[in-house]
């Protein structure tokens, strides 16, 4: 299956919902002002948020006034163009060349799929012939270390781990040290899920980052925020707060294979301009694909 096919499948439900609604609204009727309310509804239902909805609607209405939007095909085209324009700036593929070992720190709120995503990323790099090491810095949640270990066993890569309840910064330190000593190409650090509102847990994560940076200059080279497509507007708050505290350099959006639309990616891209690296579209190890603005919008509005 090609990349486009895959993201298309992953986004099928999203697209269906939006497109069906637009088509239902427009079928047979000429596009006039009354249909805008319902198009607006469709965008809001995608969790894009009111601000973004307004931006999209304003642009749609302007082009409609200029006579550029006449049919449902035009509506889709305009929408697709707008979405792509909003997202094109954040389509920056992940690379792991700016450091050796290249250290990736994975963060996010509880239950977004950090550990699974790490396994998928590890798989991508391992398949490309890179030497990958994992660091089990989620020392808080019961059996989080075992979960990462199980994935690592399947992928035949090593994990640096301490006992449950130990200091995550100490694990990060050891993992970084080990990565240097063993000539590792990519080190990925798993961390405990934390709500961005918990000041003490954010401090803990700052410490992890600091410790890694002290052991290896420039590290972590990538601070990757994982967000759950099922979330609504809170995802924006997550991105903002995590970014303020930890300077995110990349975003992964997971669980796009459900019915949730992940429209919050638009306001995040618009206001924070942080690169979106990957999209998670399933539970299998290869269900992680590079983010593409064009295909994302094409799959949504084609």
């Amino acid at each position, binding site marked *: 299956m090609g990349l486009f096919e895959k993201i298309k499948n992953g986004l099928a*439900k999203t697209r269906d919902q939006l497109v069906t609604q637009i088509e239902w609204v427009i079928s047979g009727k000429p596009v006039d002002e009354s249909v805008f309310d319902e198009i607006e*509804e469709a965008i*809001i*239902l*995608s*969790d894009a*948020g*009111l601000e973004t909805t307004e931006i999209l609607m304003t642009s749609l209405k302007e082009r409609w006034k200029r006579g550029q939007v006449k049919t449902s095909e035009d509506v889709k085209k305009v929408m697709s163009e707008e979405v792509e324009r909003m997202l094109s700036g954040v389509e920056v593929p992940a690379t792991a060349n700016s450091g050796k070992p290249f250290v990736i720190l994975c963060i996010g*709120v*509880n*239950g*977004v*799929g950090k550990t699974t995503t790490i396994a998928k990323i590890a798989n991508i790099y391992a398949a490309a012939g890179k030497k990958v090491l994992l660091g089990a810095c989620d020392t*808080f*949640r*019961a*059996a*989080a270390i*075992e*979960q990462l*270990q*199980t*994935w690592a066993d399947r992928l035949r890569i090593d994990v640096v781990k301490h006992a*449950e309840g130990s200091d995550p910064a100490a694990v990060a330190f050891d993992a970084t040290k080990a990565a240097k000593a063993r000539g590792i190409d990519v080190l990925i650090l798993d961390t405990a899920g934390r*709500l*961005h*509102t918990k*000041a*003490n847990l954010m401090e803990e994560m700052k410490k992890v980052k600091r410790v890694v940076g002290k052991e290896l200059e420039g590290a972590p080279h990538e601070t990757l925020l994982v967000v*759950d497509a*099922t*979330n*609504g*507007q*809170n*995802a924006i*708050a997550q991105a903002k707060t995590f970014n303020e505290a930890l300077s995110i350099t990349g975003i992964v959006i997971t*669980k796009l*294979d*459900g*019915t*949730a*639309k992940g429209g*919050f990616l638009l306001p995040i891209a618009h206001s924070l301009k942080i690169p979106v690296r990957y999209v998670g579209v399933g*539970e299998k190890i290869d269900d992680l694909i590079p983010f593409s603005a064009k295909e994302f919008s094409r799959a949504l509005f084609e």
Partner: protein
Amino acid sequence: MFEKLQERLEATFKKLRGYGKLTEDNIKETLREVRVALLEADVNFRIAKEFLEKVKEKALGEDVLMSVTPGQQFIKIVYDELCELLGATNKPLDVSGSPPVSIILVGLQGSGKTTTAGKLALVLRKKGRRPLLVPSDIYRPAAIEQLTKVGKQLNIPTFAVPQLKEPLAICKEAKAYAMKNGFDTMIVDTAGRLHINDEMVNELVDQKKFLNPRETLLVLDAMTGQDAVSIAGTFDAKLGVDGVILTKLDGDTRGGAAISIKAVTGKPIKFIGIGEKFDALEAFYPERMASRILGMGDVVSLVEKAQEVFDERQAKDLERKLRKDEFTLEDFKDQIKQMKKLGSLESIVTMFPGFNKVKGMINFSEAEKDIKRVEAIINSMTMKERAHPNIIDGSRRVRISKGSGTSVNDVNNLLKRYMEARKMMKKLTKGGMKGLQRQLFMR
């Protein structure tokens, strides 16, 4: 919790208070702002629309226009409608019937089922039940280990047999085990799955058919967006859901999902998860939640919680001591202990109205550490020192600081604070509330 929605509504109402009465025009503007607030809170678009239509209808009626303070009246209407949406009363957990009674937890990946299973077991044990944890998530790596570890932490038995590799088989064996060993309640944790994955949902249907649970509970992330309606609706339609547990409400999610799922499925929200610790599961009270949304705070919750843990006899004893000026450091320590029973500082503080504004400014973990330090210091004192703090001289201070792993400065601070508290309480008992107020505000 619900803070942002609360803030928005508060701002809206403030605006409204500026007018003498409600007119069609200013209702329109307010309604628009409430709409924005609801949508930003992730309340489903259609639910929000219905809600606003109802509120508008009522607001334009006479009862609003005739009221003395239109702002208050409007808050009442919004409050009533929110209450109605969230459901009339709290529905307790149903564990009736012949044991072992089953409770099955279902939901999407990452919604917090396993953690909630542990919390629920704790709630049931407090009620005098004998729960058995049953992990049936054979898919996610280390999911069964996770629940087993949770069980160990809580000292609640877990039915984990590595040879069993099929959810239905696990349920069957677990039930037999529960019957044989006298467990009256089974809490069955299941694998996270998408509501649209028919194969996986059917697996749940089979488990449910066999277990015939009293409660099939949907565990849903409070941060869920517009899709909450389709998730809850589909699980309910395909599987049949008896209630919902809303998790991760301790963040700053606006929590509109609560309103959406209740409106769409009609199923009650039974519990809310408000923290990572295993006692951070609370009953869901619609009225309280609605009050919270409207900025009235959750004073009711706090009062009830306080009643639960404060021993009345102890309280009287304390009052007598205060009157006689016998309030010792030992009593001071008891007070701290009582406070701790209420929950974490953070969870107590959020129950007060208006505290949302300062919440971000307080470092709760620091404050909790401070309390621990105070306890340690008092524990390092002799009984005589606790009763007569005046005898604590320099060398005693050094000994106490060493014993408690703190500094002499910490000990000095504590003694200073204790003396101040004592002075304050003396004023309180002598001059009553007025005396205290004068002390606090007139200086």
